[in-house]
């Protein structure tokens, strides 16, 4: 018979062994995502359940192909365009804060009142620095904090880099909003206006024009327009040509002025950077610093306009 003392011994042994074994297995799986920059990103699968997406052109290492992290994306638009690696570059030197991007985005997606999926911030990094405008779409991070925490795969990473959102699956826990360091996510706190006539009358996550109460939404890089070979609505609308959109695999980016440039050169020659690089989110949106701006600066220390809409 098991005495109390020997029971405790056996139990202590088991208690010590279980996390060790589990930890070793977990470490093997997570090793894939740690270390070098070229390592496969920890993102959800493109159609095939429980596999890694390799965003960088690094072949899978033996034994690292499966990972518990991956999700099973819900819809046809889930997988994304396999040969593409979408990237946005925003030239802050050209942005004059007109917010045409925001308006075009809201018009294209019929975004509910009070939401701005690409929001233009008035920024000033320190007292010595000049103020500047900062348009902030979703960063479509490769190490996306929102994708990590979503409990139901309502948000996931496509093979072409887009972080998608499915409001027909979202349970409204708002963990993704808490996790996003860029504040890029909005919630439908009340019943949004009824579906608009036209293309988006039926819910299509690639267009995201139909909205639902109690779910989270955000910028999705307009996959519907991309499928048609067009730029996202904000890039098209920018009168300054400040928003470039392109494909990393093709190494090309285009703006509303019809300029098509080498993406790598655009970033490298203009000291492109990513927002909050230190957080390790690996954003897919690059910024060119607001150097030699040709427009008036934002009002210094001025109050920020309150946007219309938003329930009380």
């Amino acid at each position, binding site marked *: 018979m098991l005495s109390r003392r020997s*029971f*405790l011994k056996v*139990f202590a042994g088991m*208690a010590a062994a279980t996390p060790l074994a589990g930890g070793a297995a977990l470490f093997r799986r997570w090793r894939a995502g740690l270390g070098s920059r070229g390592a496969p990103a920890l993102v959800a699968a493109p159609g095939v359940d429980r596999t890694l997406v390799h965003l960088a052109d690094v072949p899978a290492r033996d034994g690292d192909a499966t990972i*518990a*992290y991956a999700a*099973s994306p*819900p819809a046809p638009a889930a997988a994304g365009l396999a040969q593409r690696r979408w990237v946005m570059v925003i030239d802050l030197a050209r942005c004059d804060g007109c917010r045409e991007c925001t308006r075009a985005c809201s018009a294209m997606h019929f975004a509910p009142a*009070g939401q*701005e999926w690409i*929001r*233009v*911030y*008035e920024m000033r990094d320190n007292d010595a620095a000049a103020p500047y405008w*900062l348009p*902030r779409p979703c960063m479509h991070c490769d190490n996306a*904090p929102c994708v*990590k*925490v*979503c*409990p*139901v*795969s*309502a948000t996931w990473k496509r093979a072409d880099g887009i972080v998608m959102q499915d409001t027909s*699956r*979202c*349970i*409204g*826990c*708002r*963990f993704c*909003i*808490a*996790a996003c*360091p*860029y*504040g890029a996510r*909005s*919630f*439908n*706190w*009340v*019943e949004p206006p009824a579906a608009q006539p036209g293309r988006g009358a039926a819910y299509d996550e690639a267009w995201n024009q139909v909205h*639902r*109460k*109690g*779910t*989270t939404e955000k910028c999705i890089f307009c996959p519907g327009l991309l499928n048609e070979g067009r730029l996202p609505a904000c890039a098209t609308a920018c009168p300054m040509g400040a928003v470039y959109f392109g494909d990393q695999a093709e190494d090309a980016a285009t703006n509303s002025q019809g300029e098509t440039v080498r993406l790598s050169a655009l970033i490298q020659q203009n000291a492109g950077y990513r927002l*909050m690089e230190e*957080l390790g*989110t690996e954003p897919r949106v690059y910024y060119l610093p607001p150097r030699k701006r040709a427009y008036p600066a934002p009002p210094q220390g001025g109050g*920020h*306009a*309150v*946007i*219309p*809409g*938003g*329930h*009380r």
Partner: protein
Amino acid sequence: MRDWLGRPRFSTREEAVLASMRATGPAYYALVGALVAVIGWGLIAYAVQLRHGLGVTGLRDNFMWGVYITNFVFFIGVSHVGALMSAILRLTGAEWRRPITRMAEAITFASLLMGALMPFVDMGRPDRILNLILHGRLQSPILWDMLSITTYLTGSTLFLFVPMIPDIALLRDHFKDGPAWRHRLYTVLALGWRDTAGQRHRLETVMAVLAVLIIPIAISVHTVVSWIMAMTLRAGWNSTIFGPYFVSGALFSGAAAVVTAMAAFRWAYHLEDYITERHFKRMGYLVITLGVIYAYFTFNEYWTPLYKLAEHERGYLAAVFSGPFAPLFWFTQIAGLLLPLLLLTLPTISWVSRLQEIKLLRPRPALAAAGAAAGVLIFTSAAGAPTAGLGDGAIVRALPWVLTVVAAWLFASFLPVFRKHPIASAVVASLLINVGAWVKRFVIIVPTLQYPFLPIQRAPAGWAFYHPSWVEWSITAAAVAGFILIYILFSKLFPIVSIWETRAEGEAVHAGTP
């Protein structure tokens, strides 16, 4: 106790426990009625929220979590006391725990039910709850919460039930009054307990296994609860010590809740023979120990970012220490931690009684001052605050300071009174601790949201601050009422003190043989 197979006699204190289950006076019904009314109102508020969406709360895009998640962390925290009292004290052989273990386990049960409810109240789409099972992804801390809380609920329900089996058998055999369903319930739940040696051995084994298992489960529960914040990058939440910090706060608030329950049941059910001043003293030491540990974690959590003042940490730190959230934060530190610990140490501080030699520190002048302050407050608010001659906002701005001074004065004056009434002072301390615990969770959650990485800009009118709405307060009140209701209903159905376990204390039980 073998011979209660024959015709047992209950000791007077056991009769008191049994009488508490039998005698149900008007006060009890009034309390139940009041609680049901509060719960009903909360249900109406929830119906409004279901109908119109979470927009009826004060939550907004920047403040995606608020009072509901505060309640969640608070109730789950209070629930930890079951594991502490029953498992840790059982394993360490603290025999004085026996009369209060069941109270602690019942607190665990009731507060876990309320805590587990909160994330569902907080959900935007409760109709899609099944998605958590159909499409659940294990790497989301929400799933960890689900798994650990359901495991803990199962474990602690077992831990409440298993040690109750001998008592249920006793009720089955000797508690004949009341409706027939009650007797049938006891018969079923007693699981055929006949108090044989084999049954007793199995019971002891199961209890020992449960006691060992429940400790890591309980710790895991509050650790993963803290991780819904600590797994984000947000300044103020992005902390490696959130797990132990939350666990220590949980044990502290739970132990304080047990002190309140001890006093309430002792008074209402006349359990003075079971729950003595000795128990309050012991629990007081336990609460002090846990409070000091919690204070240590709190200090760690704030001092390290405060020293470095990294850019993104500055916002919430300034807000918490001297900004808009400072009154709440300092309330938790002074009224929720320092004063309760002082109150609990009072019996060992001899100079306190000499305080009354100071004329100003006698209760009467302090009460008079408090009355005068209240009078001025009512007068100014009735006269309309910014009337001429009152210096516009000056009074309103000075108000927190005036109230603090008056409260400190009152407290100092009543210290000697508290010293003479240790149980009353323990109750005041534990109530302060629990109010402070709730506010502390609010202060952990909300200030961080006020200072995200990118500043809050272009928010629609009224969206830049978090003002909890009547819906949130109503549902919170209903959750507290639900907790109390479950607790007192439980106490009418099952003895709130473990009869068979306290018999083993070796006290003279059998006054005579039949």
